[in-house]
């Protein structure tokens, strides 16, 4: 507020003493001047009004409505919504079909750990001197730029019987490994989690790489003088330096695993034992017409993600990294 007013009046006040910077216009006698100052101080708020208004309208109102729906038996259409207390929440945690989706999430959580390991591996290698470094970076990051639905369709064709993967296995003499990648219920979740890993490794990789590149090169030099090899550099310099980012990637991984949607929705539509929490929520709201119960599930997901974030901040405090 004061910054805005001082920048506007900056020229008038150019020679004024520092503490007076924001005040000259107020000293001008006459109503017009004081009105002007009042109006100018209001300006930033007026600009804020639009984004905040949109935020209230498009984010907070629906969320508050969702909380309200979650304690009703609304079917998405009825003119009346009956209050039924916490029944929906009880149902979320007692219906075995609702609980099974958490089991499916485990596949993606394991997947996200694999994804972090891969990303860390590539980020470390590419932080050293490597030929065609930028090309490798581009290749690794590229999958993240593709739309999730497109990825689903690509892999649908790649994994279908007689598709790309089967052809490769056949030509390399590994036909004994051929499965129905999405058709076999024992394999389907692994396939889908692997597609998820393929998609998101690039993002995690870039996060890690950025953190690694911000490490002061003098530290490597000092370590080299002390006779450290690459492994020592990784273990004693790189990993401790990027710990906060690893923590962040972990949180994103967990909350992402709980809310997986696009890839399984496009590839199997949640059939064959691949139903995730969000797919079930959508089904509940729009096919079973139980918007109340679906809202309760959405609230539960929100609380889960908040809880995981809170836990992470407790367990991995954001301390200053100190390598000296």
């Amino acid at each position, binding site marked *: 507020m004061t910054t805005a007013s001082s920048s506007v009046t900056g020229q008038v006040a150019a020679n004024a003493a520092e503490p007076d910077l924001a005040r000259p216009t107020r000293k001008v006698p006459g*109503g017009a001047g004081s*009105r002007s100052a009042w109006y100018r101080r209001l300006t930033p708020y*007026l600009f804020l009004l*639009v984004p905040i208004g949109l935020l209230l309208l498009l984010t907070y109102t629906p969320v508050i409505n969702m909380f309200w729906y979650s304690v009703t038996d609304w079917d998405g259409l009825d003119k009346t919504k009956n209050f039924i207390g916490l029944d929906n929440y009880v149902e979320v945690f007692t219906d075995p079909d609702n609980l099974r989706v958490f089991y499916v999430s485990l596949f993606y959580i394991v997947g996200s750990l694999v994804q972090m390991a891969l990303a860390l591996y590539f980020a470390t290698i590419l932080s050293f001197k490597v030929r065609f470094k930028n090309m490798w970076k581009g290749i690794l990051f590229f999958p993240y730029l593709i739309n999730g639905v497109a990825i689903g369709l690509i892999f649908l064709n790649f994994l279908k019987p007689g598709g790309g993967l089967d052809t490769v296995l056949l030509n390399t003499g590994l036909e004994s490994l051929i499965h129905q990648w999405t058709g076999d*219920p024992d394999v389907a979740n692994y396939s889908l989690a692997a597609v998820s890993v393929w998609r998101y490794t690039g993002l995690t990789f870039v996060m890690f790489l950025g953190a690694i590149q911000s490490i002061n090169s003098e530290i490597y030099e000092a370590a080299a003088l002390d006779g450290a090899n690459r492994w020592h550099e990784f273990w004693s310099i790189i990993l401790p330096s990027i710990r906060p980012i690893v923590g962040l990637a972990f949180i994103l991984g967990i909350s992402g695993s709980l809310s997986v949607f696009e890839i399984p929705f496009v590839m199997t*539509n949640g*059939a064959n034992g691949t139903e995730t929490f969000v797919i079930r929520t959508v089904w509940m709201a729009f*096919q079973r017409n139980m918007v109340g119960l679906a809202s309760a599930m959405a609230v539960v997901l929100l609380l889960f993600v908040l809880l995981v974030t809170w836990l992470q901040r407790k367990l991995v405090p954001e301390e200053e990294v100190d390598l000296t």
Partner: protein
Amino acid sequence: MFPQKRRTRLMAMAAATSILALTAACSGGASGDEDEAADDGTPSGSITVLTWRTDRVEDGTFDKYVEEFKAKYPEVTDVKVEGVKDYEGTIKTRMNTDEYGDVLAIPGSVTPDQLPDFFEPLGDQAEMEKEYRWINDKSFEGKTYGIPVVGNVQGVLYNKRVWEEAGVTEFPTTPQEYLDDLQAIKDKGIAVAPLYTNYKDSWALSQWDGWRGAVTANPDAINEMTQSDTPWTDDSDYGATDGTLYDAVAQGLTEADPTTTDWEGSKRMIGVGEIATMQLGSWAIPQMAAAAEAAGADPEDIGYMPIPVQVDGKFHAVAGGDYNLGINVNSKNKATARAWIDWFNHESGYSEAEVGLSPMIDGAVPAALASFMEDVELITMNPAPEGKESLFADIDTASGIVTTDPKYRLQIIDDARSGARTKEQIFDDLNAKWAEGRADAGA
């Protein structure tokens, strides 16, 4: 001084208006400004028609309808036809506002007791039944809220050539014979599968509902289900349907990997004989014949056979309306909307063009269905008894099975493939859930 103050206010207002404008943009739309019709009931002004047939909007069929309609009612200035993808889901959400067009097809998820909240009554049911068929489902307390645009009969779509080459010349009369015939086709050798489930496009599994009523030749099959704690038995409508599906999958008569089925591709495959059979309503016949022709096969190969169950030595087929057209209760131009519905049923020729039965009692039977109609006795399902219009839907939802949704059939296919549950176990589970649903819904 004063102007300054005003400017501030103006800015605040401008900001506020921009938000309002955005809000309005979300809810506005369907109704134009010149909607008001003359009160004397002459169709005039403009209306908006929502349709699920996006394909018919794109290929210009609806433009032709609109032109003809306007020729008949010159005072009508405009008919906006909006093709809606994912019709059920989109329209249901839009029905939370007042702006869901003037004429629209009533979504399946609207329960009968909700009809008066959203749709204009079109007339007394008793009166309208003299002229129209299949208006039961969309009637409530003696008033009718929607008229179907076309009627479908329910049977099994098959490739005549493939069935004949496998030595099957008679229609199967029991589910067991049906399975044996499919096995014979498999033994003869077929590229994809004797029976294609279209598992990936799961809605196709809802088409098995065409067996309901035909199995027991009982027009009250659905209503009686609300009185039973065990609707899944070997001879019941649902039991025969889901049991046959289970057996066909368990015996390997369906595609090897159901998760990668392809609806668009399946049209060509049945046309050229890579698939022998699909469970689809009669509405699918013209699509399959067109695909067969496009693939260089003979469209005459596409045949339609009755559900493989006989009662008293006769096949039965359930006939019913497709989507029913209704009028938005908030419409400002109901007279024109009504004129559109009447014109569409009487004069547009839509039902014949789509190879369906006319919704009118004395309507013509299209040539493609004529021989099928001779083989079967038609059944029209009876409406729910008064006061119990929503009972089936209530039990269905409360039980968690949701028979209107293909999900439980997907599970049946999964279990049939993996052997995780036997048919008996599946029936027991479904019956237990249904009984629970009945208790919850207070049946």
